[in-house]
């Protein structure tokens, strides 16, 4: 039994190889981008809009409001990163209802990659907002003694992000696989439904934690003024 889709190698040439995780990710990317392009091709700014445009607007404005609630004043600046994080994880997790589908989020490599992206995004937005020196000074806060702890915190929370998502998705797949062998009739369906819920919750947790980390790095102008 394969625990991760990384183990399914489809093509290999030395260090370079295509596994199921990468191929599934490409497929998801294609579906998401093609769907978005198709729907946004005929956008209307009238009062009456199409249903699909309405769905996308609900998703985008929902993500925007969540970012704003966390404390980032200009959500349109962060929505590309945080929104993509949420949508990718959510679509990858919800797609488990498809047969023979293995979510790329069930691969530790993918979750690690996403965690590394968050790890890079935090200083990127922090430096962009506060400047390089001020961002580095934040590691000394409240005192220089906190520097190692802050550094450990940065690394540990990245690890936590990666392991949390991977653990949840992998365990969900594992549980369904085990249940299919024991009681193949009803319980796998229930667990799959539960997996859908878990997947959405995990996408939300991952993206909201990323938002919190970025918000912590970006000082709010109103607070600075006070």
């Amino acid at each position: 039994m394969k625990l991760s889709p990384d183990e399914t190698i489809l093509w290999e040439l030395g260090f370079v190889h295509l596994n199921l995780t990468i191929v599934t990710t490409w497929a998801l990317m294609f579906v998401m981008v093609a769907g978005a392009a198709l729907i946004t091709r005929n956008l209307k700014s009238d009062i009456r809009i199409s249903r699909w445009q309405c769905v996308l607007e609900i998703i985008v404005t929902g993500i925007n409001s969540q970012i704003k609630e966390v404390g980032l004043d200009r959500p349109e600046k962060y929505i590309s990163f945080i929104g993509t994080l949420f949508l990718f994880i959510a679509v990858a997790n919800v797609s488990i209802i498809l047969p023979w589908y293995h979510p790329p989020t069930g691969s530790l490599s993918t979750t690690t990659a996403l965690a590394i992206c968050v790890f890079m995004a935090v200083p990127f937005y922090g430096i962009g907002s506060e400047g390089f020196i001020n961002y580095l000074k934040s590691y000394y806060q409240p005192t220089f003694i906190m520097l190692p702890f802050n550094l450990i915190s940065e690394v540990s929370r990245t690890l936590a992000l990666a392991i949390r998502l991977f653990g949840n998705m992998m365990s969900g797949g594992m549980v369904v696989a085990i249940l299919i062998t024991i009681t193949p009739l009803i319980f796998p369906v229930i667990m799959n439904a539960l997996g859908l819920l878990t997947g959405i919750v995990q996408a939300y947790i991952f993206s909201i934690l990323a938002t919190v980390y970025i918000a912590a790095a970006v000082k709010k102008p109103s607070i600075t003024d006070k």
Partner: protein
Amino acid sequence: MQIDWFTVIAQIINFFILVWLLKRYLYQPILGAIDAREKKINGQIQDAEGKREDAQREKALYIEKNKLFDEQKQQHLNDLLDEIKAERKKRLDAVAGEAEMLRAEHKHALLTKQNDMLKEIAQKTQREVLQISRKTLKDLATVSLDEQMIAVFLKKLRTVQPEEKLQLIQAYQSAANPVRVQTAFNLDSDLQNEIKSEVDKILGASAEYLFRVSSQLTNGIELSLNGYKFSWTVSAYLDELQQEVSETIKQTSDAVAQQK
């Protein structure tokens, strides 16, 4: 369960590509459409606000105009009523005046008619009286009334006042016409000669005479010369008689009043 670093790198690249693609095809168009709609709605709201203000202004103007119109209408109505009243009064006055005038005309016509009737009665009466007198005189004294009237006329000529005589002479001297003598009956030549001789005596000259029968004279004789007239008629005689009787009655009544 281990980390495949090639997959990690590939997934990081995949993720950033996805970020760029979704930014290009999802977030930007959707946020742009939302912004455009918000602007459009704001524009519509502002437009509606402007229209609402315009409508309020129009409403206020309309109410004001309506009020003014009502006032003007009432004013015109009042003016019209006043004009109608004035016109009614004027027409009633005109009709009343016309009625008064018609009444006066009618009254005048009645009086005229009455006078004409009285005059006619008087003339008829005179004619009847003369006829009776003529017949009576003829039957009793074998004297015609015409002859008697000429006799009276001649007597009046003989006793004419000096002023009147002078007037007759002056009229004769200034006139080129003959002396006109009008009677209600035909005069025979003896009576004509008598009159001629009496007038010639007054004038002191032999004048020319023109004798004429006039239907306008009921009875009596009239001598006219260049505007001067000398006559004796039964009407004048009766008028004179009536005047004398009236004066006598008046004097008598005054005397009775003084005695009381």
